[in-house]
């Protein structure tokens, strides 16, 4: 495989569904982080996921950074940037991408948490199991 083909294969994971270690949907691959080594080889170092990342990729220059700040405020993640998923946390790549991470620690959880705490939890029956 040439370097270009390899890169293409990795970029194929863009926009795929992310699933956390408890089998919860945890956003999509909104972008990837690339590193260029001294010999010119390009490799993917992390997946990026969160509304801020997506907005940046779609060139919403004000909305992107604002959403990223919101995610950092709303998600008390261990790592500095909750939108960054190091490649080491990727458990399996298939039709979806399985992570060895908890949804709660990711930037994709920021608005989910806000809507859950401020709206859904105030409606009776929000914790009833569906079946």
């Amino acid at each position, binding site marked *: 495989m040439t370097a270009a083909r390899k890169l293409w294969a990795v970029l194929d994971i863009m*926009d795929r569904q992310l699933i956390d270690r408890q089998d919860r949907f945890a956003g999509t691959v909104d972008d990837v982080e690339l590193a260029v080594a001294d010999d010119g080889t390009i490799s993917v170092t992390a997946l990026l996921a969160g509304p801020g990342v997506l907005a940046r990729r779609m060139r919403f220059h004000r909305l992107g950074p604002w959403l990223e700040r919101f995610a950092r405020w709303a998600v008390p993640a261990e790592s500095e940037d909750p939108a960054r998923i190091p490649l080491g946390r990727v458990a399996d790549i298939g*039709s979806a991408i399985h992570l060895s991470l908890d949804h709660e620690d990711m930037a994709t959880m920021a608005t989910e948490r806000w809507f859950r705490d401020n709206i859904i939890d105030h409606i009776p029956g929000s*914790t009833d199991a569906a*079946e």
Partner: protein
Amino acid sequence: MKKILSITLGILTAIGGFVDIGDLVANAATGARFKMALAGVVLIGVLGIIVYAEMSGRVAAITGRPVFDLVRERLGPNAGGANLIASFIINLLTLCAELGGVALALSMIASVNYILLIPVAAFLVWIVIWKMPFERMEEMFGLLGLMLITFLVALFHLHPPWHELLHSASHPAIPKNETPFTFAYYAIALFGAAMTPYEVFFFSSGAVEEKWTVDDLNLNRANVYIGFPLGGLLSLSIMALTTVVFAPRMISVDTLPQVALPVALSVGKVGLGLLIIGIFAATFGAALETAMSSGYCVAQYFGWQWGKFVKPREAARFHVVMLAAIVATTLFALTGVDPVKVTEYSIVLSAAALPLTYFPILLISNDRHYMGDHVNGRVLNFLASIYMVIIAVVAVVTIPLMIITKAGA
């Protein structure tokens, strides 16, 4: 009985697509205006939705990925986002119309102005989404919707001139007082109703809700091969009824009670009662289908947790989207917009958005990385490609036709 219950997803999906409030009236209107000349379009539409719904169900069973997930994955955020906006607006317009439709069905029993019943209808839709497990929901409204078979019974009971109906269907002719443009407009409305995108959003998401796996491919086929032809059959029997009752008298149809009239003539009060239950279930089912599709589309595009298989608090944004959709459409419906007109517009608009939904399904169902050995066969791909061309042509001519004919007037 258990076998029947396992295909209610297909039945509910098809009834919500083929005989929801707008299509009940559109089918009746076509029969009265064009006799059975457009019956062939319904058959073409049935085959088209069978081809693409089977693919979407198969992809969902094998990969766990529903349609809007595929749309985002194959089209990316920009084109996928354009489809999201279009599909979301179509879902809202249809939901608004169905809330009106449920209220109209209730008002046929309650003798109260239907506008007053719209908030009641909206609350019932929301509480079912909030509380009722997915399987109970599809069984209840799928089975009640079967009461629409009253249309077929009423048709038989009238002893219609079958050979004339068949002749009209097999030798389509444009009536003297119609133009080729209105004929084409109604053809697109019927085709669009058959292939309306929320059917595959709902069907494929339902397959995930029911946790289908590779072992359920036969179940997928059974749902598709029984549900959609049934929807088409109901659609054709309404068309035939109004061909027999209204067309000879040059009466045009544009309200729901007019659709029920031939049934009352044919099988009397009991039949009418069963029909109203069927209409209630069909419009309610379509309301559930479109309200939930609005949540499915948005959640799957962004990768949020969705589905009734988790508690509402674990899919908070999904439930907020659906709740907001119901509130917004209720307010719009309360302005007194004509539900029938609203769905006719939304069907035609959805015809314009069809390619962006069906093309990703075709791509993924041919992708061995996703599907392994369960990729499409050659015959299926041949058929699907023909439909891709039809869909593309329909998408291009829809809006101009709508303008030329002033929406079929």
